[in-house]
């Protein structure tokens, strides 16, 4: 669960000068947001604008527009919904809450998920802080008071982590907060040890509810954001369903409905979310992606049904809802004439099935990169991208297998430019019968300073049994600055 602090998305005026946003409260104009530059100058939220202007003469003051903030926050939520997780909601006033259950492994773990998310937000000019915790309340508190810029809480550690945080982290109404401060409570830890009954009598049930929600004792379902322009179909059941066959049947019905709506609007789905509300208020999600926009009910049903085993129906599912979170225009196309040209096989269905089975990153094509360093000469591109045409320069033989990283070997070789006489790799010593080389590869000075004079000399060697290897020496054999002069085995020829 995350919380993102939007910081004046429209910093357009001038990023060099300190900027604050102000709002009028009665006769006073108060600072409601300050950019990092302004905060460094000692300005803080809640300070009167006149005082701020006295402290910083060339301060830019803009009116605070809560309405615009809310809309752009919703836009951001939609962006996160399309890319990160099926369950996203706005956490007023300035945050987003994301249920990352089942979404984190797609991004390589919780920490990696947060890192990617924050990185992409920074690139689009939004400064954000984020935290992952067991409950909405805890994540809300940790993101605002502990994350810098991110924090991943261990499961079950909420109480220890929350104790030192100020009471404002609990999402309490201002009146309650003021009352608690009057009584001398400063941090959450002070409240945890107190008997609940007098607190409830004095402040109402809200205080203990928020406390329980933060600690994860009370459930707090997240109502996922569903903007009206999203195509969503849902079906509620009078009797909860649990059998796989029943789920398959209803998925088929939902997909048919969804495809009818998509066809009406001339759209095709790129990403589908199936949400299953269980009777115990848990939500199970299934997300499938498509390489090209599609609205063929059979294909969509098949992709969804392959994931059914990941749904755990528990005591039964009462609502199924299917949403096309990412859509693209899909117009009817004329088929190629069979008389003149061979029809090109349509692989998008196959790529979709494979990508949803092994992950989008597991299905790819390889394309050449103009680089002489072997491990950099290949890049992965999407499986359905246009043909790149060109291949690699073919004047030197290249191995069929390249080791993930070069493995050090022991050799005996004459310097500066002779191939090894023998090599010892993985504990086996081989006498070199024939060899070709050297093929000199220079470091790419534009990538790293260390590569400015680095050199590798590649040799293709063959041992007495006929096994052919690709070995190289780091360095040119004369100048010690060009490399360590150690030998490595990099590939195996067929």
């Amino acid at each position, binding site marked *: 669960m995350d919380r993102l602090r939007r910081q004046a998305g429209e910093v357009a005026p001038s990023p060099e000068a300190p900027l604050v946003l102000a709002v009028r409260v009665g006769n006073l104009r108060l600072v409601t947001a300050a950019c990092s530059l302004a905060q460094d100058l000692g300005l803080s939220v809640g300070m009167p604008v006149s005082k701020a202007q006295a402290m910083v003469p060339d301060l830019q003051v803009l009116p605070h527009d809560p309405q615009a903030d809310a809309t752009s926050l919703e836009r951001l939520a939609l962006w996160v919904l399309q890319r990160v997780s099926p369950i996203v909601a706005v956490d007023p006033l300035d945050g987003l809450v994301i249920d990352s259950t089942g979404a984190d492994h797609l991004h390589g773990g919780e920490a990696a998920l947060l890192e990617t998310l924050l990185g992409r937000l920074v690139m689009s000019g939004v400064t954000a802080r984020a935290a992952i915790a067991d409950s909405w309340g805890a994540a809300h508190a940790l993101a605002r008071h502990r994350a810098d810029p991110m924090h991943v809480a261990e499961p079950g550690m909420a109480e220890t982590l929350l104790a030192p945080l100020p009471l404002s982290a609990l999402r309490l109404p201002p009146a309650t907060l003021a009352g608690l401060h009057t009584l001398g409570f400063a941090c959450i830890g002070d409240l945890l040890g107190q008997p609940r009954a007098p607190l409830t009598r004095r402040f109402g049930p809200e205080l203990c509810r928020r406390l329980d929600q933060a600690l994860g004792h009370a459930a707090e379902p997240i109502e996922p954001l569903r903007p009206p322009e999203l195509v969503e179909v849902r079906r509620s059941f009078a009797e909860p369903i649990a059998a796989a066959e029943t789920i398959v049947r209803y998925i088929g019905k939902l997909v048919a409905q969804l495809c009818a709506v998509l066809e009406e609007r001339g759209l095709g789905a790129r990403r589908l979310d199936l949400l299953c509300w269980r009777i115990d208020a848990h939500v199970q999600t299934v997300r499938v992606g498509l390489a090209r926009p599609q609205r063929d009910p059979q294909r969509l049903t098949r992709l969804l049904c392959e994931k059914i085993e990941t749904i755990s129906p528990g005591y039964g599912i009462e609502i199924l809802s299917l949403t096309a979170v990412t859509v693209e225009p899909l117009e009817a196309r004329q088929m190629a004439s069979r008389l003149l040209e061979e029809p090109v096989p349509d692989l998008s269905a196959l790529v979709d099935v494979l990508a949803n089975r092994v992950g989008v990153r597991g299905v790819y094509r390889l394309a*050449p990169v103009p680089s002489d360093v072997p491990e950099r000469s*290949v890049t992965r591109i999407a499986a359905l991208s246009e043909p790149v045409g060109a291949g*690699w320069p073919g004047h030197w*033989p*290249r191995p*069929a297998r390249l080791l993930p990283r070069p493995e050090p070997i022991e050799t005996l070789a004459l310097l500066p430019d002779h191939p090894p006489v023998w090599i010892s790799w993985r504990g086996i010593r081989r006498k070199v019968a024939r*060899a070709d080389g050297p093929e000199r590869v220079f470091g790419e000075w534009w990538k790293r300073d260390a590569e400015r004079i680095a050199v590798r000399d590649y040799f293709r060697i063959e041992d007495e049994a006929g096994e*052919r290897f690709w070995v190289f020496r780091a360095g040119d054999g004369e100048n010690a600055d060009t490399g360590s002069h150690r030998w490595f085995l990099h590939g195996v020829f*067929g």
Partner: protein
Amino acid sequence: MGIKGTKQELNLFVLNLIGAVSLMPSRSSNPAIAALRQQIARMEGDGGPIRSMLPFRLPELDRRLPGGGLALGCLHEVAGGGNGAVDGAAASSFVAGIAARLPGPVLWCVTEADLFAPGLEQAGLGPDRVIHVEAGDDVSVLACMEEGLRHGGLGAVVAEVARLSMTASRRLHLAAKGSGTTGIALRRWRRQQDPCDFGQPTAAMTRWRVSVLPSAPLPVPGVGRARWLVELIRARAGESFDLELEACDGTGHLGLPATLASGSAQAAGGRGRTFA
């Protein structure tokens, strides 16, 4: 059980007949053998003889393969010999050469991504034709392979697996038959000791082992064109043999070593190994 026994007997019978008539230039010209072949094919439930073949364009090789080439729309097995059982380098170049000569895109499923695309390109298989799939384990690799075989729009599907059970191979073979896509299981093991399960039966049409040999001798110092010992260990309705060949050229075609091409080894009984 009874049918199976009969089939084996018939197979043996056909082999004996072939042994008896091996002087004949073309086997299919004998109507009795052709009839027997059809009978076996009916028993195997293949629905008739295999439709098309991919010849290697080497008479020494094609002559000994049933049907005169590699049967398309079937499952084949290829493994490396010696260290090649672990690194699979020669086997993958051999497979790349076959895939390069088939029309259409190629799906290559692996568990660990250590293929070097420039090397494949030098065996004739350009980067634009190959879609790579990196799956977590053998089972998902086989599932992806089946998916590719059933699709029907691909030229060939290659899967690098260690274990291939009879059930799985039968399933893949049927999928390949249904769509006409050729499937190649590139057997690749983790350790040198593991390949003993290569002896277990599978439903594959042919089973090959490709081992490296010292390269073609050059008049100057250097490494010449790579040579392989290509062994056909098992072929349905065919004989096994081994042959020394030169590795794939830039179009995926194998070559015949000069000593063989001159005919001296052919005279020595057809076994292509030459010992200097």
